[in-house]
């Protein structure tokens, strides 16, 4: 493992989704896309049986790239096309907005046709004739690029009636969201698309594959997930499954932000690189020669991991037997399962790095401000709890902490997680739980008794 300042080793990066995105001279225009082999997989897919495409996606082991990591083929398989008599919708979730996550934006801005091609193939596989790209309201530029790309695709009959003479009809529309985190939650997105306030739906019974948009079967997939479908069609499910490790197939885009020398987005095969390699070899190590203090591995809602921690990870060895190994944070291979086994999650792939100068109470206050602002307010615990936690942290960072505050924060977070309609409850409480648990001494140092506060003020 390279240390701070070492030369990055980008050669192991395996760009599939971002293959062309940063190529010099590559533009979002359709001509450019076609010159680079665009829409060839669409032609191939349209000649296939839709069920065969679903089978290939299942065989590929593709897991959703939006955060939850649910197997895409399994999700698609929930719709029983033999019995279904309602229209099927495909929704692309482009509402990326969690702090630390900025991977989908690159695809939308730089290679929109890849997404469109992936969506057309996915729609065809799922018998959908209408699809929407739900894009975050603030991404105005992305929406314009997509609109233009869709118009280009329509002009070339990749969209519309009788696509490329196959008899298959599909249209895709861009829907600009209202700009709320909750609009990216699967069912909140559907509600928003239906013109309502984006309140998540109670599950069960409203699993979107059964009752989604307009109570019709609906597939909701992330931008990166849908792009992957094109490549699965290109290389075949079995070949795709060979990329990465079992259960973590294909590549993943990791976006690194925070206190590293070279933040950015990088695409690697599942489990092909360790956290340490990503931080030190690829991102050039911690900024200003500082030490790593903590990192959040999967978007700001994931639990924080502290430098120096050692995890006991249960995993299958080469012979297929379960074994338990000890791993340091830097040795964690970047895949869904190992990061989950470390007590956090790879989520959306947004890695937020904090160096030793960071005040963890300030960091958590910053995150809590986001979650308190973005809670939709539907469920009591999240609505009241997120704001309460934020106020406690604000007070602590303002020098008015109390000895009981760290425990209060843990209690409040515990009263939210697992008790709300959607996962936002966990999203806002997991950072609090993990920050306080892992950096308790910092929270306690800010949580001093009133008399002591008075004494401190008097001495300054």
């Amino acid at each position, binding site marked *: 493992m390279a240390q701070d300042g070492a030369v990055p080793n980008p050669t192991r990066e395996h760009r599939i989704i971002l293959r062309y995105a940063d190529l010099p001279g590559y533009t979002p225009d359709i001509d450019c896309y076609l010159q680079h082999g665009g829409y060839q997989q669409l032609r191939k897919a349209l000649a296939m049986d839709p069920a065969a495409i679903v089978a290939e996606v299942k065989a590929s082991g593709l897991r959703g790239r939006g955060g939850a990591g649910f197997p895409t083929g399994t999700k698609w398989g929930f719709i029983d096309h033999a019995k279904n008599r309602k229209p099927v919708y495909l929704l692309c979730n482009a509402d990326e907005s969690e702090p630390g996550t900025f991977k989908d934006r690159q695809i939308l801005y730089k290679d929109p046709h890849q997404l469109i091609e992936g969506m057309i193939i996915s729609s065809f596989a799922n018998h959908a004739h209408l699809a929407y790209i739900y894009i975050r309201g603030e991404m105005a530029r992305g929406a314009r690029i997509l609109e233009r790309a869709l118009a280009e695709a329509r002009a070339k009959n990749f969209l519309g009636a009788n696509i490329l003479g196959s008899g298959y009809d599909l249209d895709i529309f861009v829907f600009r969201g209202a700009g709320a985190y909750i609009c990216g939650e699967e069912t909140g997105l559907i509600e928003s698309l239906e013109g309502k306030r984006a309140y998540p739906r109670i599950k069960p019974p409203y699993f979107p594959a059964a009752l989604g948009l307009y109570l019709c079967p609906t597939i909701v997939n992330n931008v990166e997930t849908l792009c992957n479908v094109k490549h699965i069609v290109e290389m075949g499910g079995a070949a795709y499954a060979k990329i990465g490790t079992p259960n973590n197939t294909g590549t993943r885009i990791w976006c690194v932000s925070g206190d590293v020398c070279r933040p950015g987005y990088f695409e690697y095969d599942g489990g092909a690189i360790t956290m340490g390699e990503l931080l030190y070899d690829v991102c050039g190590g911690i900024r200003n020669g500082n030490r790593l203090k903590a990192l959040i591995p999967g978007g700001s809602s994931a639990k924080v991991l502290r430098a120096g921690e050692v995890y006991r990870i249960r995993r299958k060895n080469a012979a297929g037997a379960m074994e338990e190994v000890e791993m340091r944070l830097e040795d964690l291979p970047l895949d869904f399962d190992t990061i989950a086994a470390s007590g956090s999650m790879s989520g959306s792939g947004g890695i937020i790095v904090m160096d030793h100068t960071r005040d963890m109470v300030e960091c958590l206050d910053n995150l809590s401000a986001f979650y308190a602002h973005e809670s939709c*307010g539907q469920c009591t615990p999240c609505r009241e709890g997120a704001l309460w936690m934020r106020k406690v942290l604000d007070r602590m960072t303002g020098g008015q902490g109390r000895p009981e505050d760290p425990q209060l924060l843990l209690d409040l977070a515990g009263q939210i997680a697992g008790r709300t309609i959607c996962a936002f409850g966990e999203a806002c409480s997991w950072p609090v739980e993990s920050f306080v648990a892992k950096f308790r001494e910092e929270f306690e140092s800010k949580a001093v008794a009133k008399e002591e506060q008075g004494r401190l003020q008097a001495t300054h």
Partner: protein
Amino acid sequence: MALIKNPFDHDLPPGDARMVHVHLDGEWVEVPAGLNVIEVARRFGKLIPHYCYHPKLSISGNCRMCLFEMGMPKLGPDRKPIVDGEGHPELQWMPRPQIACATTAFPGLGIRTSSTLVESCQKGVMEFLLANHPLDCPICDQAGECKLQEFAFDYGKGRSRFVEEKVRKPKRVDIGPRILLDDERCILCTRCIRFARELAGDDCLGITERGGYNRLSIHPEKRFTSNYSLNTADICPVGALTTKDFRFQMRVWFLKETKSICVDCATGCNVTVGSREGIVYRLTPRINEAVNSHWMCDQGRLGFHPIHSKHRVLEPARRDENGLFPGEWALLLGQVAEALRKLEPSSVAFLVSARLTNEELFLVRSLRDLLGGEPAILTEVVPRKGQADGLLRSDDLNPNSRGARILGIGADGEKLSLLRQRIEEGRVSGLFCLQEDAVAAGLPEDLLGRLSVLVWQGILVDKTCEKAHWVLPGASFAEKNGSMVNRAGRVQRLERAIASPGRSREDAWILRKLLLALGGEEPGQSSPEIFAKMAATIPAFHGLTWAGLGDQGQPLPAEAR
């Protein structure tokens, strides 16, 4: 079936639902499949606390107060439930709590309503709900009916750990002609929003802002004008929505509650009359799944105000050349009886209100029979027509038209023109107006002047009263017992909530005295007695008893409907 169609009936499983065994707090019980878990618990005397759940509204699942611990049948390797010696499945309990409002009974469902996990959830939700709530119970007019207050006692921690500044939201927001909103108190259960959308058909309420700043709002430039708006104050679990009419008028725990029915139209919504010291303060809907379910219209709810009008007639009186002169009941009723007896039967007519009870109408009928009977004596009721709204409001604004028809007193004013004609021709010289204004019914004032005997019995001064020779102050619906037949043919009871003011008396009392003064036989001294006599005499009421009507009423026998 209720006369109003509820979009949801979570408390009423389909009639053909099969019975299933569920495990409720340690015991296996049998309930209909598909029944809501809150209702399952309720059937066995257990309360699963809830705010956003209402049996007649869609499920929103947002308050999280009804979290319970849920068990599922444990499956064996063959994917079939593992059963114990008694044939019940072994349960495995889910680590996460579930909401009872969105869970329905299925075979082998496990329900724990008071485990450690459940209690922790309930305490947690209460702490959150109270964090930003203004806790202004002493000045909030929902005290006594506030679920936040009640559950704070039952499930709260007892003290607050919230030391931050509370979120301030708008106070006293005027959202409609009859409803005020205090946003600070709102716990965002969205019951009112769902009611306005799903039942009232007036989708004007919604939530604005985000997270802890969420607040209930009315759509810009809209007002909550629905004729059903006051129901939202009933279903609001806290003091966020209050009725302009009732707020700060009376603490609810001081009110005497009397089960009665609304007399504002032919629907006959079941109501609770809230009164104190002879004054009615409010009417609230009383649940009757055969009539009004949980609801009633604003118009009916506010229809009690005239009973405390300053125009109320309080003393029986006779008119002489100097005007009305109060007298003793016995004396005046004797005079009226004498005057009626002197008239030829064919020159007497009764203008009767279809707002009278069956018992009163039966006494009118007895009086008519005693004086000469049909067809010599003309009786008719005055119709009141409104517009049906497809919900509860009926186009017939008389509450007992069917009773009047069954008892042969009148039929929607068909004979009103005949009455007028007979007075014009001088064939009718004695008119007895019972809770009706003959002038408003279409008889010109000067025509009334031609009558030699004009008796008026009612509660509020009107044109006829001003002309009447005898004025007999009667009672309002809140001041008497009796029964009425609603538009669907359901016989329901009115119950006396307050005493009649002044020297006014119940109409049945007046009519009975008159009947006795004319030499008639004793019809019964109380409503149950008169009802029994009526049920024995009138075929349509055969088989019905006063006690049998109960609080929910009974349908007329099939042949009478």
